[in-house]
């Protein structure tokens, strides 16, 4: 008897709680969108810049009246740079915070793992940095390219296989290296990036002398660099997050590894202000692929850069910040086109129809090859000249003359 009583009272409490939960949804409060970023851990530098940019955009959007009068709010979840934590975070945002859409996604591994959660829950996920190709390949989620209406992942940034496309011109026309040595971090981002760069080398007739991986967070790169030095490459191509990138250059300088014509980074760590802070003098002359530069002739690019510096100080954002800032504006645009009904389905439909201009460039989700819902973009080349990141390629957009050939002994002050 007692047990039945207990059960009944438990059921009543349960019913009440469910009812109360339902009442919590209001039609006038902010529209909440979940954002997954690495806010602590080794990738926190990137996460912080992206969060700042999301917040900057949010303030501007809400100051202009928000989404049809309702403010937009970003709910952040820290993925700490680990795929399992990222999955749990995505799940929490979807189930607990009941967001109708996810954004963010920094490292490739975390983004891919979290994308599977979004896909399973049928929640649109606008990825703005995670770059491994398979994120927008339905094949990786047991779907086909014809399943656009069942595929919930969208991507603003180009995939890693296209990062170096802007670099090709510079290599072909100016440097003409005969050989390259590839160094990459060993998670999805680095491995896939290295593979596609090796293909580029084949195409350009550059001989790949070595392809070595390390795990992110390595402190001593000297054995790796000494192996590279032994092969006497014309260029060193590196795919690294920011601390690894800084250490690679610092230790190259310490070793007096001055024989290559070029040190080239594949974006990520090599364009970050934190790279300069940590690599010091060894920053000078380093070239990197990039997806954006504040001097590009895109409306709002320079304004965004200046606003960011004004608000947060420091050295200003690189392409990661621009990606996040633009993602926030794409979200605002998408929500405005939802006609006041903010469900995953209406948002997905609005994402499909997106065709707008952002500070990062035009955004439109298209399909090509194995990919769908992928935004196509040009990539560029930057170089650290006198401690500043300058856009050097393509020539018609460049804001500085590239430094080449480089006498490392002088630029590094050896």
């Amino acid at each position, binding site marked *: 008897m007692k047990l039945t009583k207990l059960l009944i009272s*438990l059921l009543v409490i*349960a019913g009440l*709680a*469910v009812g109360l*939960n339902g009442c919590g949804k209001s039609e006038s409060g902010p529209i909440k969108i979940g954002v997954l970023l690495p*806010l*602590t851990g080794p990738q926190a530098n990137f996460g912080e810049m992206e969060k700042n940019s999301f917040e900057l955009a949010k303030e501007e959007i809400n100051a202009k009246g928000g989404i049809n009068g309702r403010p937009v709010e970003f709910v952040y979840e*820290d993925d700490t740079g*680990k*795929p*399992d934590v990222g*999955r*749990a975070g995505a*799940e*929490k945002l979807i*189930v*607990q915070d009941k967001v109708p859409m996810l954004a963010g996604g920094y490292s490739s*591994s975390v983004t*891919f*793992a979290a994308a*599977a*959660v979004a*896909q*399973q*829950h049928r929640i649109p996920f606008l990825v703005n940095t995670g770059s*491994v190709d398979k994120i927008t390949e339905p094949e*990786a*989620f*047991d779907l086909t390219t014809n399943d656009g209406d069942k595929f919930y992942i969208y991507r603003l940034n180009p995939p890693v296989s296209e990062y170096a496309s802007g670099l090709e011109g510079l290599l072909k026309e100016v440097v003409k290296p005969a050989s390259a040595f590839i160094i990459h971090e*060993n*998670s*999805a981002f680095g*491995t*896939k990036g290295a593979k596609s760069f090796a293909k580029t080398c084949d195409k350009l007739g550059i001989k790949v002398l070595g392809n070595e991986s390390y*795990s992110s967070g390595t402190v001593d790169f000297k054995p790796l660099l000494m192996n590279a030095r032994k092969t006497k490459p014309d260029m060193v191509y590196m795919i690294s997050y920011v601390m690894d990138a800084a250490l690679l250059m610092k230790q190259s300088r310490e070793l007096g590894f001055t024989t290559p014509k070029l040190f080239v980074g594949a974006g990520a760590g090599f364009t970050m202000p934190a790279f300069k802070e940590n690599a010091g003098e060894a920053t000078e002359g380093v070239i990197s692929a990039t997806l954006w530069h504040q001097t590009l002739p895109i409306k709002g690019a320079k304004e965004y850069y200046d606003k960011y510096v004004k608000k947060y100080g420091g050295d200003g954002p690189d392409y990661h910040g621009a990606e996040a800032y633009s993602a926030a504006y794409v979200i605002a645009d998408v929500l405005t086109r939802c006609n006041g009904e903010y469900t995953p389905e209406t948002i997905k439909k609005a994402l499909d129809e997106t065709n707008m201009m952002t500070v990062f460039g035009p955004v439109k989700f298209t399909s090509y090859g194995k990919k769908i819902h992928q935004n196509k973009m040009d990539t560029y080349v930057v170089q650290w000249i006198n401690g500043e990141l300058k856009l050097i390629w393509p020539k018609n957009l460049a804001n500085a003359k590239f430094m080449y050939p480089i006498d490392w002994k002088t630029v590094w002050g050896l």
Partner: protein
Amino acid sequence: MEKEKTKILEISKTEYIIFLGAAVLPFLFFNSFYIQGLLIFIMMWVMLGNSWNLLAGYTGQVSFGHAAYFGIGAYAAALPYFHYKISPWWGLLYGGLAAVILGYLLGILVFKLRGPYFALGTLATGEILRLVFGEEEWLTNGHNGILYTTTWVSKYPYYFIALALAILSILSVKMVMKSKAGFYFLSIREDEDAAAALGINTKKYKNISMAISTFWAGTAGAFYMIYMGFIDPEVVFALHNISIITILIGIIGGVGTIWGPAIGALVMVFVQELFRSAIFGLAPHWVSGLHALIFGLLVITVILYLPGGILGDWDLIANKFKFSKRMRSSS
């Protein structure tokens, strides 16, 4: 006394209540997916803690490489899925077995070592597997990891599977420790040479302890794969996130006690979440960076003041509490 001896397994009233309480627990948090998720992790850590405790706490073979068995269990579930689309659920059957086989093979090497050398040997095996699974891309998909769309969105089925496995792991340790083998384990822990001199086949019994231990570590790994739907070598063969945490759970809860690992798992997950979430968002954000530090301090405190762990030194804690109470009332 004579009567009791014939019973292989005895479950006390308190234990029944704890099991029942654990079964009701997720319903109390029915509207918090987040807490339900934590409960599932606690159960997984109970499995791992028990696994380590049998080998280290009861048999005296302190392993620093339980991630090796956890990881091999996870990959045993994941690889057939990755290559042949065989459901990872079968991993619950063969994840444990794969770990037992690995444990036996590694045992041939590491059981030749004693004390700290054994610990270092096991540590190395975990690290070697992490590196090998990261590099051999043709087999394991390397650092890209293996992704699987999980079967259910709801947490309840996972919780009850984890709970059942955790209870079974506790009962299996309890049963073994009541049997003859259990006494042999203890004698090996106290003095391996003396045990051998008394005619105990120490090699055989160390292997038996290893087999049961690795079975639960492998099963926990397979469960992790099924539940999380994503593994990569850095996650499942992690030295500090798996091997070390497993040891800390044993130490905090109480080495060589039946319920120690369960208590250790509870404390560990709670402390970790408390700090990771910056005391549920009440404290400033930087607090979330402190969780490793706080956990380290907790371990130092336990080792210094409660060398037997929370359960092993329960009398000490209870006495202290009584003592300080008396002090307060008298002053």
